[in-house]
């Protein structure tokens, strides 16, 4: 099963810039490696990450085979209101993972 971790501060001041760290457990197989028998290992990567904040998209990333395994992506956003952040990863072979994090803005 897909394993993903996100790190969002539980509480933030209104207007504060918060850092969000996301990590997805995935081999990110490039499609350039071969087995010992010389067969090409087919590509299997996460292609995109989308982050929404109370339904509005705040960040999107397109990933390519040159991303390291277990893609870690760190970005920032302004804490505007209490609510939930939703993260969605999608990739090859029907890979899909979602994670949510609650944030309280004071």
């Amino acid at each position, binding site marked *: 099963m897909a394993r993903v971790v996100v790190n969002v501060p539980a509480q933030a001041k209104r207007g504060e*810039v*918060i850092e969000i760290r996301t990590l997805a457990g995935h081999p990110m197989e*490039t499609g*350039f*490696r071969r087995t010992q028998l010389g067969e090409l290992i087919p590509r299997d990567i996460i292609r995109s990450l989308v982050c929404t*904040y109370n339904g*509005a998209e*705040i*960040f*999107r*990333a*397109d*990933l*390519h*085979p*040159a*991303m*390291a*395994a277990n*893609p*870690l*992506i*760190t*970005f*920032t*956003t*302004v804490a*505007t209101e209490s609510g939930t952040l939703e993260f969605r990863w999608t990739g090859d072979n029907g890979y899909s993972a979602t994670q949510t994090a609650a944030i309280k803005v004071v």
Partner: protein
Amino acid sequence: MITRRAFLFLGLFVGSARAQLPPNIGELRKKALDEAIRKVVGNAQVRTGKVKLELPPLIDNGNTVPLSVSVESPMTAADHVRAIHVFTEKNPQPYVVSAYLGPRAGRARISTRARIADTGVVTAIAQMSDGSFWSDSVKVIVTLSACLEEGLI
């Protein structure tokens, strides 16, 4: 039947096995990089400045290279960074990541981890909300390359 001598000669030609890579690999890579950048940038001019790409200058293991890109920008609705793209020169596919931000990001800074195939140049390009492109390049030395386990060349 193939004699031992003939076999050895054959081995000499076939076995000088850089044959896997085309002889003009350098040019091909450069072309692939240019093409990838053109696809993002179009015909716009890319200027250096504003962008700061940070990654270690000496990389022991190209499989996991931490890098971060920050862009000087007020990140307001009128003036913000729309996207950040990262390219490497020597990878079989030069594209690493593209991140789309907006004014809600607050600060134009992302960090991630990349695979870098070989000693060469890594480039970050930022697209601003006014349509201009800014870039920064860093030359890195890689001792253990990623992507191809047996290494390039």
